[in-house]
């Protein structure tokens, strides 16, 4: 879907990405919002709309997003919203809101302290409550079953998966990695994402306001998200039709992209996403290191969009950012960013 008005990413910031932070989620957000708006010469009073992405299950507190409002300076009362989703979906809501045309500037965030609980025990509780949660069906198990499906289909193999890990993390030796034990066959430790605490904040602006704030705004020219069935056992795991449909709707095929930032928390997911999106060798995939280098749940997808925007800020022409939610790439979001001469 193409926007009815010019809407651009004009800046973003992320906190240090660490295994465990001493800061509360609210404190993370307070700092990262300031870091995102100050270089643009903006104050919180300039922000017309905020949308925060976070997850009570991860925080361990009902209505945890209410505390996070302390970080946005919501007085006098402001237009605000929240999604129990990655900040990439908060960005989608802000993008829709800005198309109404009555406001100029929005800030979106994604935040999560994964270290607060044990992800291996928390995520099964979000699965089907009748058949899957009671048996502790965990994300690593589903990821392993998807990896096996991709290997059977010739889309991935264990060596190619290890190569994704080495390239993304910028360290390790493929042959050595392949000697490691399986965590969930065929997945080894290097195929899994790290546990990361962190937050990101992004600033959107419309039309002339965007051009006043920065020299080269990263215009959002296509944006779509689609979902599939909740139970991975009922899906063909060697495909990701929701990715394909979202990419088509976002106009990926209209022109080449130079960079693709993909939210692939498991190595084989990158191989599937490359295939489904039709990305050739000429596209730089996850130059940031992606979710395998740092995986701040609820902010990982927003960071992908931030890194894609950085490519435009630095003179690039067109970039793709992808975010995902749910087991085995259940729900997928594709955002196309472009620069203008």
């Amino acid at each position, binding site marked *: 879907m193409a926007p009815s008005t010019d809407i651009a990413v004009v800046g973003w910031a992320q906190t240090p990405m660490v295994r465990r932070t001493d800061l509360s989620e609210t404190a993370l957000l307070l700092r990262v919002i300031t870091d995102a708006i100050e270089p643009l010469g903006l104050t919180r009073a300039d922000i017309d709309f905020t949308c925060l992405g976070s997850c009570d299950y991860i925080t361990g507190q009902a209505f945890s997003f209410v505390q996070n409002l302390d970080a946005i300076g919501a007085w006098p009362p402001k237009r605000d919203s929240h999604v129990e989703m990655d900040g990439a979906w908060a960005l989608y809501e802000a993008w829709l809101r800005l198309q109404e045309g009555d406001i100029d500037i929005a800030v979106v965030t994604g935040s999560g302290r994964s270290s*607060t609980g044990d992800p291996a025990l928390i995520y099964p509780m979000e699965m089907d409550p009748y058949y899957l949660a009671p048996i502790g069906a965990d994300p690593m198990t589903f990821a392993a079953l998807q990896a096996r499906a991709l290997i059977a289909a010739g889309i991935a193999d264990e060596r190619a998966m290890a190569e994704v890990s080495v390239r993304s993390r910028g360290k390790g030796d493929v042959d050595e990695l392949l000697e490691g034990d399986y965590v969930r066959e065929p997945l080894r430790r290097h195929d899994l994402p790290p546990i990361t605490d962190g937050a990101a904040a992004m600033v959107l602006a419309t039309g002339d306001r965007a051009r006043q704030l920065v020299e080269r705004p990263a215009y959002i020219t296509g944006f779509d998200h689609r979902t599939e069935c909740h139970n991975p056992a009922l899906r063909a795991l060697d495909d990701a039709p929701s990715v394909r449909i979202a990419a088509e709707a976002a106009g990926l095929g209209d022109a080449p992209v130079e960079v693709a930032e993909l939210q692939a928390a498991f190595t084989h997911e990158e191989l599937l996403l490359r295939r489904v999106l039709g990305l050739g060798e000429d596209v730089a995939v996850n130059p940031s290191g992606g979710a395998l280098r740092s995986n701040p749940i609820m902010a990982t997808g927003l960071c992908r969009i931030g890194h894609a925007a950085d490519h435009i800020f630095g003179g690039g022409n067109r970039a793709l950012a992808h975010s995902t939610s749910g087991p085995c790439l259940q729900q997928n979001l594709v955002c196309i960013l472009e620069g203008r001469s």
Partner: protein
Amino acid sequence: MTRFVENTITFPYRRSLGPVIGAFMTALADKRILGIRNGDGVMCPPLEWDPATGAELGGADALVEVGPVGTVESWTWVPEPTEQHPLDHPFAFALIRLDGATTPMLYAVDAGSPDAMSDGMRVAPRWKGERVGHITDIASFVPGEEPEVEGDDGGPLAEPVERMDYLASITYNNPVPPSSDFVVDASREHRLVGFRCPGSCGKTYVGGRGVCPIDSVEFGEQHAVDLPQKGTITNFVVITPVQYPGQTETEPFARVFVLLDDTDVVLGYQPVIELPVDDVKVGVRVDAVWASPGEETGDAPTMAGAFGSLVGWIPNGEPDVDDPDLVNRIF
């Protein structure tokens, strides 16, 4: 050095099962597995709606018996089970297509070793002896064509199962904000400490709140101010306790809002002492009461924030305040 505090939160859910999943669970207790017809296929475990189209599938009338023996379509090995898994020793999670079904179900296979697992292998359920109409009535699947029962067979249920219990329990480790610890430490010296915002709002915040929500300023010790320990009840609520898990109160009790003298500060949801529920009213003058040394719990006693050793508020004998606007002061 930041202090971390561990909390375990449990959510005791009771879910309605509906006509399809309820029938599936009831059949499990009778060692039968049901699927549901969906076009030319049979989905197992059954859902009420086609996951692709959302079309209703025909309810209990569309259920058919499948398996209980099936074929492994894919699998992965779980070398280190968690407390949530159905087995306490290494096992396989497998996608199992039961005979007569066209979709696989995820379940545990107790195979002993990954070497014993392969695509296409045949597996049968190992039933629990005492079955309650729950997915875990299947203890696991085992290699082979023969279903098993653990111990004595308790037989089917007398009544159809309509609900299931699910106890979600998660343990969290959260950092305690330094501002909160500072306020609690001060309370040990029977000081009531707030933080005065250095920003434009100029407001004072209590309860260890570490951030000004108006100016988005983080508070430090330099912003701490001592507050009066005398005030007036502005509003109150009397709570008749419901005996949910964790509720320790058994009789109706009051929680009051206290406006501190010579300030704009209201403490919310405070306990009262030596003030019977029937005597609680707007305008009563009260003093702070602190825990004796050794009686401090270290826990925040109220849901309104961390006030440390502050136990509650006691009438101080001064005449009531007669001000119709008082009742509006809850923040």
